């Protein structure tokens, strides 16, 4: 390589490195893209909730407003991975009516795709902007919307209704999300003896 070529190479390299440096330098004076995550609950009180900075279409934890749920099962059928479990029984007080005794959404399994939200006739099931649900046990991720002691009657859609009185988005799910270290719910069968007794009872 002739000396002139050698020197030209050095010049090119230094020049293009300098160009790059000027770009890098300008980034020192730009607004950072990162945002400060407003820490745990306490520190956050001073700031806006992170959830509220998200766009309204954000697909976070699901929420069902039982007051306007018609128990039509459309959401359960739409979910490709059976995340939603709805059980409907006859009302013991009035056998002509039906009540929902279970409406569970397993957020540990949900992939937040939004397919269940689309067929809902009343907009009862919606994505909220809640996303912090760290749990020690997977079973704590299940959101139970119906209290088994207080079954929920289905909502009757008035003829021609287009708007439904829905609770504020997030106000139902937010209290249901457990603290991260809360104990898991009891298993249906607790001890080995009980399991044996259960099996014996079944055999009879």
């Amino acid at each position, binding site marked *: 390589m002739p000396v002139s070529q050698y020197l030209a*190479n050095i010049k*090119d*390299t230094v*020049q*293009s*490195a300098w*160009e*790059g440096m*000027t*770009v*890098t330098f300008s*980034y020192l004076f730009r607004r950072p*893209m990162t945002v400060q995550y407003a820490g745990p609950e306490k520190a956050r009180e001073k700031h806006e909730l992170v959830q509220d900075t*998200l*766009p*309204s*279409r*954000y*697909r976070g934890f699901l929420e069902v407003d039982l007051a306007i749920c018609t128990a039509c099962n459309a959401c359960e059928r*739409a*979910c*490709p*991975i059976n995340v939603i479990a709805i059980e409907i029984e006859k009302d013991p007080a009035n056998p002509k009516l039906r009540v929902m005794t279970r409406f569970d959404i397993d957020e540990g399994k949900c*992939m*937040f*795709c*939004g*397919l269940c939200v*689309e*067929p809902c006739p009343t907009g009862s099931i919606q*994505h909220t902007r809640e996303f912090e649900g760290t749990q020690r046990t997977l079973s704590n991720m299940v959101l139970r919307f119906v209290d088994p002691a207080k079954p929920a009657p289905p909502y009757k859609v008035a003829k021609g209704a287009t708007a439904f009185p829905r609770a504020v988005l997030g106000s139902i799910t937010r209290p249901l999300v457990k603290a991260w270290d809360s104990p898991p719910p009891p298993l249906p069968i607790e001890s080995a003896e009980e399991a044996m007794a259960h099996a014996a009872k079944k055999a009879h």
Partner: protein
Amino acid sequence: MALDQIFITRKFGPNAEQEMILNMGPQHPSTHGVLNFIVHADGEVMEKAVPEVGYLHRSLEKIGEMVSYAGFMPYSDRVDYLAAMFANEGWALAVEKLLGLEVPPRGQYLRAISCELNRIASHLIALGSTAMDIGAVTPFPYALRERESINDLIEALCGARLTYNYHRIGGVAYDVPPDWTPLCRAWLDHFEKVLDEFDRLISTNEIFLKRLAGLAVIPAAMAIDYGLSGPNLRASGVDFDLRKAHPYGAYPDFQFKAPIGRAYAGLSRGGKVGDCYDRYYCRVLECRESATIVRQALDKLPDGDFINPKAPKKAKPPAGETQSRVESVRGEMAYYVVSDGSERAYRLRVRTGSFTAMGIIEEVSKGLMIADLVALIASLDVVAPEIDR
């Protein structure tokens, strides 16, 4: 290659003394996901690098035969997590073909907008990580910084930042939110300036140019033989873009170029058509083209439905088979679907660009240095989940 074969080459192979067998990956930071290469090397020079795939196999094709047609849409996001829109679109096109369903113009435009934004986002990662794999760390966070804005735009559009699940059979899931179009336009203005800056930062950097010029050249004939597609094929000088060759959706309405490789590194630096730098620079140019497409689509965005009102709630296409092809970020993505008239696909097959790109690595890596393998993988822009599906 099975383990016993490795053993045999070591012991009794023709170059038993000199050949060194190295495992690169599957947890190597610069193999772009869980990829494994078995490198046969003599010192620093490779005899070949054999890719081993299958570490990210999630049997998506089988899942597609288990869930309903609409229910597969969120799964198609996972085919290629950096370019989920294209997988969405391919799947939607395939089922629409089976059903004989039309997509209203607004739906088609929204598809094009979302896809081209996604293309820019994915290319930004490819560009940044190419630079990072070569050793220039700075461009990567800068590229991700711009990608973050696209994520924000797409999040406002469809509610998710990575697994979009935006397209539906017969259209798209949501209309553009109010105030979204000006935001998108403002970002495009900003982005074109950033790309110029990106060129100054790394694309015209002498060290970077010399490092990639003339490296791992894939001639046009070879690229066609191995079935490369997308930017990898065009960088070899073959002018083939599905958006132009077999236009689908709203693409016939737009004016854009499909950049092809032209030895951009410069002949004086030893640049050749189809080298690593061409593959890199074609992506930079494609980002610009995508930006113009988004701009045109926003200008011409027609009114009307964004989803066909006749789209069935529960798709039950008649028996038959079909194929759909889209120009994805990493090349041609094709869906082959067989329907038996039920509400689930009888057979589903996905063809992806990364898989064919992996196939060519063994051939191209002959005679390269080990350090160049990283540049080759980065320039081919393979993404592990797309290889295995």
